[in-house]
Each structure stands twice: as structure tokens, then as C-alpha cells.
């Protein structure tokens, strides 16, 4: 599907907001779902679509929130208004939406965007959002911010004061997105405190629609043989208890 860029907004040197027209896309956009974006030109090692979570969506548009990591995202950050890009989506299985709950959101770095869209869709919930990153430029609006270098918010990680927060407040459910080691640590802590957790995972993807089985994540299985699910189709959102975290 060709999607026209309506706006490219620079947030800081690393992060950009890309707003696209959703003309022609009828299926609704769920928080936790993603799209794959193809670059406008053929570049070495950059022919597969780039998976990007939904940051926002309405009747006429959807917005992506990208961090420049390598060549592909760097080029995306340069895409100009009115340009049309090949986009597939919305793809995958999103977060479970709840109402009237106390909700904990925990994001790391570029794990922020899917939770933002989730937050918008949670009705009448009391939300606490913990967000962390390497440094100041990785921090966005939230309740508790952490940076590894202390340049913004508390110095430390999203898990630094997590237990205290959990002691002081009871949460019905938690949602998290970020690097795997962070998710693994969070999953362990929330388990102790019996807070159900949904995590949004990342894996290298080819098709993005469930046919190639390239984006495997190991999940708990009853028989002795390992069991892998597809992040692009069965996920990217999974119940944390399902995941076999790499050690």
C-alpha cells in the first residue's frame, strides 16, 4: 500500500515523527500493532520493509515514531512531505485493552511509541508510566524518567525503583516494550508482585505477515521439544509468562 507522508517532525537529533495518510487502509489500528515501511530506493541490505510500531492513529492518518539506528531509519528520517512510501499494515497482534484499571507502563528507549498509543486507548484507567533511556535525548513525557548517564530524571534503569513503586501501589496490569534484557528483568519482578504483564517484542523480520517463520521467539511448551512463535503474527505482544527469556 502506498502511503503519503503528511508530516515529518524532528523531535531531536535521534528521533522523528512521521505522519502518514491512511487512505486506502480500512482495518483499524490497534495499539501494539506495527507496520513495515519500505525505503524509497533500493539500497544494499535495505530491501526488506522496516518494522515500526504504531505511535498514533486516527480516521485519516497514522503516525510512526522512529529512532535513527542505522542507514534505513536514517533515510526514513529524511523522507519528505508528500512522498509516498510502500507500507504494509497494520500487522500483528496488539495489546489487550482494559477499562477502569490501574495500569503500569514501562518503556525503554524506542519502546516508548507503542505504549503511547496504548495509553490513548485505555479508557478510564489510572496510569503510571516509567520510561528510561541512555540519555536525555531518549526521554519523553512520562511519570518516572531514568537515564543511564543521569542527564535527565533519575540516574539508573527503569527497574531501579520498580520494587518500591510496586510496594506502594497495586497494579491490575502492566505493559512493557523495550530491549529484551530489560523486559526479562521486568518480567521477573512483576511476577514476584503478581502483576500480569504484556510485553511487545522485537525480532528480525522478513515477510512481516507470518509466512516465513523468521521472527521466532521461544515460548513455553508442554512437550519436551522447543516451541517458537512468530513475533510478526502471533505477536509482537505476548503474555510475559509465555516467553522463554534467553539467558
Amino acid at each position: 500500500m502506498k502511503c503519503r507522508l503528511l508530516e515529518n517532525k524532528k523531535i531531536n537529533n535521534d528521533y522523528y515523527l512521521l505522519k502518514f495518510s491512511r487512505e486506502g487502509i480500512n482495518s483499524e489500528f490497534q495499539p501494539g500493532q506495527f507496520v513495515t515501511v519500505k525505503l524509497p530506493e533500493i539500497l544494499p541490505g535495505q530491501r526488506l520493509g522496516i518494522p515500526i510500531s504504531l505511535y498514533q492513529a486516527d480516521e485519516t492518518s497514522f503516525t510512526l515514531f522512529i529512532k535513527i539506528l542505522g542507514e534505513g531509519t536514517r533515510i526514513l528520517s529524511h523522507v519528505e512531505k508528500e512522498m509516498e512510501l510502500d507500507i504494509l499494515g497494520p500487522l500483528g497482534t496488539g495489546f489487550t485493552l482494559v477499562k477502569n484499571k490501574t495500569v503500569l507502563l514501562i518503556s525503554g528507549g524506542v519502546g516508548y511509541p507503542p505504549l503511547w498509543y496504548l495509553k490513548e486507548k485505555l479508557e478510564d484507567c489510572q496510569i503510571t508510566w516509567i520510561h528510561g533511556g541512555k540519555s536525555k535525548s531518549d526521554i519523553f513525557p512520562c511519570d518516572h524518567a531514568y537515564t543511564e548517564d543521569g542527564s535527565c530524571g533519575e540516574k539508573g534503569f527503569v527497574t531501579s525503583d520498580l520494587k518500591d513503586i510496586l510496594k506502594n501501589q497495586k497494579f491490575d496490569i502492566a505493559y512493557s516494550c523495550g530491549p529484551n534484557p530489560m523486559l526479562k528483568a521486568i518480567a521477573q519482578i512483576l511476577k514476584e508482585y503478581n502483576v500480569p504483564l504484556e510485553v511487545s517484542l522485537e525480532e528480525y523480520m522478513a515477510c512481516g505477515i507470518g509466512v516465513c517463520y523468521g521472527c521466532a521467539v521461544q515460548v513455553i511448551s508442554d512437550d519436551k521439544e522447543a516451541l517458537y512463535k512468530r513475533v510478526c503474527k502471533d505477536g509482537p505482544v505476548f503474555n510475559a509468562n509465555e516467553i522463554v527469556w534467553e539467558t
Partner: protein
Amino acid sequence: MNLTTKLNKLEFKNPITTASGTFGYEMADYLDFNKLGAIVTKTITKDRKAGNPSPRLYETEWGLLNSIGLQNPGVEAFIKESIPIYEKYQTPLIVSFSASTSEEFMEVLTRLETVNSIAGYEVNVSCPNVENEGIAFGVDAKVVNELTSKLRKLTDKELIIKLTPNVTNIVEIAKAAKEGGADSLALINTLLGMAIDPMTGKSRINKRICGYSGSAIKPVALANVYRVAQAVDIPILAMGGAENYLDVLEFLYAGASLVAIGTANFYNPNITEEIIADLQNHFDKYNLSVDKIRGKVL
């Protein structure tokens, strides 16, 4: 002009099909399966296979590395869940299967033979043969010959043997398959490849050695198709880096009767439909047919 083509026992409305493992019913939202010349499904095995640990994929400069490890739900689940979906389409269904012993190959085929809607089989012999020190079936002419004859006895449907290019002499293997009773041949499966992150020394793929596909391998695929077509007179289902109608023409000239699109599906899930349309225009413009150009390289 019409685009029709044939393998030994099957006729197709056009020469475009899907490469095993790069296609699934999940693509129905993006592609009209009835437009395809044929459907080739992902390789299945007797029992479910877990597949390999991640990372399983890496996009190299000019191709794709994969190490899926034949993850599949097993033949029973396939027949229960996938077959009914494919039965909704008129397009001939070619089922790819594999195994680690010839016994198991036969068991899977026997089970598949109970399904009428299957038009033919693509036998994936690129996987390790536990009866032969884990060496792939497909690299040994004698093994391929014996396996083919065993399977031949079990079915009258189109029996396609899919060859691996990672051999010294693919022509010898192709002949062995033909003499074993293969109706036709499919080639090529992935090349062996590898990639390393130069900054960390970490292999890009968990299993390190993996399968290499995509545009980068097209010249190798063409060389194999041409050599086999010159030496063996049974139809060829060709694949390896084809991603547009010009590539398809190359394979037809080299000797292919049918061309499968693989990795390119990942760049665009609708690509096969687009290629068929382009091919139709090309054939009309120059009034060509598959017969007119097949194997006619100058």
C-alpha cells in the same frame, strides 16, 4: 498470447509459482491465489518441527540469509489446518515435504496421498539424512535415486525432486532423480551462506551456516538450470533470485518450464501477481509463448 505451461503431468495457466517456505495462506490478504500458475507450500515433515533459535534471518547487501530449520506443525496439522484453506482455490496445489530418513519420507507421502486436492509434490532433499551421517540426501546421486524410486511407487501424481546447488555435479544428481522416476525437477534450493557483524564478531545467524537466497544468487541458479536442462530431458521448476518478469524470461530461456518467486515475496507480497501481469504484456507485445522461448538461449 496465453501463458500456459506444463510440468510432466500438470498444466498451469501461467509459469509463475511460489517458492517453498516463502509463501503461506497468510498472504491471501495481499494476493489472489487464483492468479498464480501454481502454489507450492512450505516444507512439512511427519511430526512438528520446532525450527532453529533466533536470529534466523539477516539481509545481506544483495540477498537474504535464513535459518528457519523447517519449522512446521507436522503433516497432520497441515492437512487439518492448511489444506482446507488451499482447497478454496482453483490453483494447482504442490505440497513440499521432507524427512530425515527414507522411511519417514514414505510415511509422509503415504499420508498426503489420502488428500485428493493435492496436485503434486515437491520433495525437499536438502536436509540431513540421519541414515548417512547427517549428510544431506540431495548431495548423493545414489541416495537421491533410491529415495525417488521409493516415492515413485507410492504416487501417480507429479513428483518433483528439488535439488540443492551445493554439490560438485548437479547434473549427475538430476539424472539420478530422473532415473528414479521423477516427473520433474525443482532447482535451486538456497546456497550455503554466512554473515558476521564486523564490529562484534557475532554471527548474524544463530546457527552460523545458513541458507542464502535472493537476487544475488540468480546467476548461480541460471547456471544450474541451464546445465540441467541441457543434460536431462524432464521439465524444470526453476527458482533462485527471480524478482521480476525479466528474471522469469531469463529462467525460461535457460530451460525452465515454471518459475518460482521466493525471497522477492518478502519485498512485496503481491509481487507474483505483478510479475504475471508484466509477463502477459510482454508475451502479447512480442507474441511469445513459454514453448517459444523455453531453453532457447542463444
